[in-house]
């Protein structure tokens, strides 16, 4: 088990390295001068003196390998440079905002799983019935509606018309826990919806498959009643592929937070990214992209590890 986790962690580290290098390459190997690109707004040419100064500041005059090593070294020591906009250290901003994004992702995943697994199981048990058809339609719609549409419509309904919840913003938990949670509900639900659809569909498909397995028949032959069979032998086994798919959805989930934080004014990491891209603040963008990619890789790692815990065969096969 430990060996398996160590192996997966190595793979994850490799992926992080790959992403860091990829981002570096993207910014340096594309035709055109990053400094000039950054300073030029629209069709307006940049001031040559300013470009030269910026090149010096960005270390663009060093040889490429040198820049690359500096870049890697910076990432390793947690130094992601300083913002062009306000000169603040990028790492500090990220450390402040990352937990808020994680909170939305965590709440959304929890919500999606708590609703998706039972509903998917129900649909599988009643496969071909009315409830199954309805759930299939609902999940198709959920998968097809972009998260910012869900968010905007949710604000319209729950904040504007019904006035049940605030339309957006952020209050820290320590300041006002109730308001904090109230503000969390809409963003988390918006992110949760497409994940819910994925989990429901996948649960339905795997439960149907697991129900055909011999060990479910064995469980019946033992004289167990429905609930423990479903819990211990059907859903428990079906969770393994469902979790794998959830892992594959991590990218979409993180993309979802970018839009949702913007829609709900949630001051997380992703919203920070959008404003950084908007301002073309190169160190900020690179820093955030690297951190979010790490997040992506490590969430996937977490999924792998939980999967190995659920399925004792995994660690044996792959390590």
């Amino acid at each position: 088990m430990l060996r398996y986790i160590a192996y997966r962690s190595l793979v994850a580290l490799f992926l992080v390295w790959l992403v860091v290098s990829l981002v570096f390459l993207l910014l340096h190997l594309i035709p055109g001068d990053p400094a000039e690109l950054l300073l030029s707004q629209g069709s307006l040419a940049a001031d040559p003196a300013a470009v030269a100064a910026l090149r010096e500041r960005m270390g663009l005059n060093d040889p490429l390998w040198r820049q690359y090593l500096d870049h890697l070294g910076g990432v390793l020591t947690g130094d992601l440079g300083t913002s062009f906009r306000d000169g603040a250290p990028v790492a500090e901003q990220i450390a402040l905002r990352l937990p808020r994004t994680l909170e939305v992702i965590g709440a959304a995943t929890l919500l999606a799983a708590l609703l998706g697994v039972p509903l998917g199981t129900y649909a599988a048990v009643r496969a071909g019935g009315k409830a199954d058809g309805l759930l299939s339609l609902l999940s198709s719609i959920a998968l097809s509606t972009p998260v910012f549409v869900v968010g905007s419509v949710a604000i319209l309904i729950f904040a504007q018309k019904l006035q049940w919840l605030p339309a957006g913003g952020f209050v820290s938990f320590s300041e006002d826990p109730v308001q904090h949670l109230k503000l969390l509900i809409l963003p988390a639900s918006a992110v949760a919806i497409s994940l819910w659809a994925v989990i429901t569909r996948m649960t339905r498909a795997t439960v149907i498959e697991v129900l055909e397995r011999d060990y479910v028949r064995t469980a019946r032959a033992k004289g167990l009643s429905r609930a423990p069979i479903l819990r211990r032998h059907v859903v428990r086994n079906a969770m393994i592929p469902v979790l794998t798919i959830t892992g594959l959805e991590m990218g979409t989930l993180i993309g979802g937070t970018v839009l949702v934080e913007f829609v709900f004014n949630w001051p997380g990491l992703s919203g920070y990214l959008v404003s950084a891209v908007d301002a073309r603040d190169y160190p900020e963008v690179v820093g955030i992209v690297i951190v979010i990619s790490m997040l992506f890789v490590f969430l996937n790692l977490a999924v792998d590890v939980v999967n190995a815990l659920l399925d004792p065969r995994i660690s044996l096969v792959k390590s």
Partner: protein
Amino acid sequence: MTRTTRKLLLPGTLIGLILAVIVLAPVLPLHDVRAMDVPNRFAGPSAAHWLGQDEFGRDVLARLIWGGRASLFIAVGSALSAAVLGTLLGLLGGYFRGVVEALTVRASEVILCLPPLLLALLVVTILGAGTGPLMVALTLLYTPNYARVVYAATLQVRALDFVTAQMAMGAHPLAILWRTILPNVMPPLLVQMSLVVASAMMIESGLSFLGLGVVPPTPSWGLMIRAARGAMEVSPLLLLWPSLALAGTILIFNLLCDRLQAVLDPRNVTAGGALWLRKGPRRAALPAVPAATDGPLLAITDMAISVNTSERSLELVRRADVSVHSGETVALVGESGSGKTLTSLALMGLLPDQLGISRGQALFRGRDGRVTDLAQLDEDGFRRFRGAEISMVFQDAAAALNPVHRIGDQLAEALRDTGDAQEISRRVVDLLRHVGIPDPERRQRAYPHELSGGQRQRAMIALAVANAPRLLIADEPTTALDPTIQAQILHLFQKLKSDTPDMGLIFVTHDLAVVAEIADRVVVMYAGEVVESGPVAQVFARPRHPYTAALIASVPEGAADRLVAIPGTVPPPNAMPPGCRFAPRCAHALPACSAAPPGAERPDPARITRCIRWKEVT
């Protein structure tokens, strides 16, 4: 119209309609998308403006159509360019393998290390917002999807004979790729295409919504939603129209993808489910069964098992007569397809959903002396018997044990009237020791895959005898094992028999050597019918049915190894011959044999045969 086209008709027509509208946008009598009419801002739907006017008084319908044009142009355009690029990489990688594969397919997969929206944002940072950069980003993003699909398909096709033949004949690789491989990867490409268009629209609209995609004043759905958010209170409809258009279009493309997949891979379509999980209506009280004070443990008379589909019902097993006394071992013998496994599953209520007992009785005498007709029980009724009074050892222990639970836990689960954790653990260890698993204290913590095949089967047996059942059914318990282990497991059954002299045992097998070793009586089944039964010694010494005789003759005997295989095969259930079902393969068949099903005849009080010519031919 075939089913295929009917399935694709709905999404196909809708997509056609949408495409037609946006292609014809320049010639449709629409308002100018940029013509402002500030006095009439936020005006509701009217004859001139069907969907109303926006925050600058512009016509919403026109903007919706032109916005869709922008969105779809970007989505379809990048889906196409990604398809071309990805297909190329996939074909090259899959055809040449090796270094080329690393440089094409694997290299493109690096993109998958980044969350999609993030990569798009990165590209936009570098290239600036706008339609061009968006398409570059989306093309990059979806190239690996196509490359993977085409790569996998190419590998498959590459191995086909006609492709190998062309390679051997020295055809130019490009010609081979173009002529044979490309047409073969078309279907998965189409599925991928509809998926990518839907997904690209999601990302395009998201970026436009953030103000990083399509640049105003070009209308786009994402931008329209962004603008409408500011005016939500005044005019919620402005938010609704582009939202509906966007979600609806994506939904249609997703639908097309689902349908395409269903058409290309029909396996997925069959709905499953499990009837036993649904609580049925409570059955009326069971008809009282006259109970003799003394009788067999199990008496099956004239039982039939049928498939019940809506069209017709088909008997898979009929005229099954089997009885088992306590302490007796009855072997159920026959080729595969003879109905022996179905018969034993029926006794546990474990028949597949579409099958059921359609006739006859299966009277079982319980521990309390009461007699129950198993043929009348429903799922809840069976639960009382399963594991406690009747239990079963399944053929393939590797599949029959749950891979994610420890052996000990699966065993503990089977125990009835348990005590505290310590007591349970003690009983589990005792059981494992009883079935001959070495070091049971440690082994109970093992997962099924950590045990050898023989030990798994022993664990399976421990599971079945956990509550000292009155009737044990073993369905081909040794078939999946190698010969030495087979002998050990057989030995274990003999030991269990002598340890629990009251237990009845039904041993299902196709192996006559095993029958001779373990059984007291034998029941021979053929094509869903019991054709002969009687004490093992008598039946083996003098079979009274040509099928039994042929089976015995086909057993290799020592060094002589004179195997006389029975010619022909068991007829399929939907094409059973009339009369005697063995007639097509029987060396002694006469026209009379096919006139009517032979009745049960008793050559001896203890024996039954269903052959009209038993007197002459055996």
